[in-house]
């Protein structure tokens, strides 16, 4: 499917190239308004001078990787670059912690221009990760298309406030489908914890870079990942009771549910249709060891129709469950043409230590589907057919008895006829 899309995109690009005469290869298929956007956020703080990646400095490895990434950016992706700690080399924390700027605006990539911009960078200042993430979020804008930030850094935030992990969670909760992937060039515990936390908060990934070629390979992979077409969920606000619940149609929805909160939604199901929903509650922060999720379909009067649940413990990204509820047709009653209202109640049993922030709640993804599905098992066996030696014995014995009875009856009739 994706290959076809690529071919179609190729055909479009060819037409565009013909129409525009000779166009530069990178602008020939300029990304559309809804194309995915990726911003690379590069740490240019003083510590990037360290030479511990296969004997080369972190900065030179990062620069080389950026060159390769810029060469390999898929034509459908809009790419931007932001730096942090690139300009202010002084000791004033307030200034150093606001040192982040956009190096290359998010848009179709001019390869030479982008590479020249990266080449000028020199390791300089502080590491204001939280501040830079907020900036990157603004750079990406809010128009359509998937949004992805790739953060490449060698250290924990040296500014403390705002806490980058809280910033990441706050950005993810804005409902603009932001994913932050992090790459760590240093391997100390604090850096790892912070970068894992940022990635976890937005459903992104954390990579610890050990060798120089791993860096460019991973960034390229993340940029390509942005290009994969994916359905973005629409935001919805669940109510705390069925009566006030918002009505959902078929589609993908997203919400937030804090600890021990119940969220209600409503769905209209016509007779003959089957309601199918899946719910995933994401663990985007440190949570306690055991957890679960429950989704219930509730009919009029609060009667439970069907439920789906799952529970688990240990490391996880999401907890999911689902349910199906077919609404049968019963004859051709006038009233049976009307759609039924089914309420969906979503709850989860995640909990967290007191030190963990409660707000915004955990991300909830709800997929609602209404399908025309037959719901009539004619027989539990295929076509009502039988199987097994007992069946054969029963049939053979029945045949034998029938044959014997038939034979005896005809003999008896013959003898009666003879007697008369």
């Amino acid at each position, binding site marked *: 499917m994706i290959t076809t899309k*690529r071919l179609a995109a190729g055909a479009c690009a060819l037409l565009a190239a013909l129409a525009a005469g000779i166009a530069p290869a990178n602008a020939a298929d300029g990304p559309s308004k809804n194309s995915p956007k990726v911003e690379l956020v590069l740490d240019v703080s003083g510590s990037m001078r360290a030479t511990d990646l296969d004997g080369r400095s972190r900065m030179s490895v990062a620069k080389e990787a950026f060159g390769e990434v810029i060469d390999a950016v898929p034509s459908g992706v809009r790419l931007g670059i932001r730096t942090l700690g690139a300009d202010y080399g002084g000791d004033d924390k307030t200034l150093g912690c606001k040192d982040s700027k956009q190096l290359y605006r998010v848009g179709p990539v001019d390869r030479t221009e982008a590479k020249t911009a990266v080449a000028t960078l020199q390791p300089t200042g502080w590491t204001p990760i939280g501040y830079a993430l907020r900036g990157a979020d603004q750079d990406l804008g809010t128009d359509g298309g998937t949004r992805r930030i790739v953060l490449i850094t060698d250290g924990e935030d040296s500014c403390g406030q705002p806490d980058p992990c809280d910033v990441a969670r706050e950005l993810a909760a804005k409902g603009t489908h932001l994913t932050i992937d992090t790459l760590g060039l240093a391997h100390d515990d604090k850096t790892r914890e912070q970068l894992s936390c940022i990635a976890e908060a937005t459903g992104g990934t954390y990579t610890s870079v050990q060798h*120089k070629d791993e860096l460019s390979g991973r960034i390229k992979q993340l940029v390509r990942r942005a290009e994969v077409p994916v359905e973005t969920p629409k935001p919805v606000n669940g109510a705390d009771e069925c009566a006030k619940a918002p009505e959902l149609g078929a589609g993908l929805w997203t919400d937030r549910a804090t600890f021990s909160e119940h969220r209600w939604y409503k769905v209209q199901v016509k007779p003959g249709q089957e309601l199918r929903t899946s719910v995933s509650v994401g663990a985007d922060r440190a949570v306690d060891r055991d957890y679960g999720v429950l989704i219930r379909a509730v009919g009029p009067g609060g009667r439970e129709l069907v439920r789906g649940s799952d529970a688990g413990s240990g490391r996880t990204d999401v907890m999911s469950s689902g349910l199906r509820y077919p609404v049968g047709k019963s004859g051709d009653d006038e009233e049976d043409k009307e759609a039924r209202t089914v309420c969906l109640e979503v709850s989860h049993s995640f909990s967290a230590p007191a030190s963990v922030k409660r707000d915004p709640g955990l991300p909830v993804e709800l997929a609602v589907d209404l399908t025309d599905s037959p719901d009539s098992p004619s027989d539990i066996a295929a076509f009502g057919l039988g199987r097994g030696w007992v069946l*054969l014995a029963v049939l053979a014995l029945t045949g034998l008895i029938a044959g014997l009875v038939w034979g005896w009856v005809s003999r008896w009739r013959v003898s009666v006829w003879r007697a008369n």
Partner: protein
Amino acid sequence: MRVTTMARPAAAVLLAAATLFTTAGAATAASPSPAVSGGEDGAPTEAGTTFRTATPVKQGQKATASASTGDYLYWQFPAGAGQRATAEATVQLPEAATRHGGATWQLDVFDGLRRRQACASGEPTKRALRQDTTVKVTCTLRTVRPWADRWANDPLPGAYYVRLTVSDVPDQDLGLPVKAELRADAEDAGGAHAEGGEVAPLHAAAVAEPESGWNGGWWSARWAWTVGGAVLGALAAIGGYKLTRHPHRAARQQ
């Protein structure tokens, strides 16, 4: 890395040429592998990271992905009624020198409604020791049924999600590179599992229909048993009748 720098002008020439024919090459000429598929026989070379982005895999195809320890890798494969599906994942662990201890890898399978599915057999969780280079986890599902009660969690035709992740690992080892390989196969469970009923396949739009169809074929061994039984019954009936018609001969034979 020098090689890459040298290759750039060549890539540019290629790029220009590619624009004339098909620009599918434009994205692929520079990057070693395209977005999702591109391995042998078009098998996926990337895995998704959420249910929504799960990479579709055909039955019998070998999907590969490079990832970081701690990533959650998602694929989805189709299974039709009467099939017994097995997902098998092999993880190539990071170099032993960079690791700080053993790691437990886990394979979870969910149905198209994201309901967890039981592994009827296989080894869905496995602990890799520090010196191990690979770890293999497998999960064989229960036989897919063509219909199930709405209250049941039985496997139904449609897509199945596979999630591969490390469930227990020293914190220092998170983020290290791994390579994963996934293969989903299905075998026909036979007449014993040929059941009646039908539902529309779950989340089927994302995956290709299996060769035997979502609902299996009409044929099953049950036809042979039933027809065989009918023939046997008829023969027994004729035999029984004959027995009463020629009692003397039958008696003499005894």
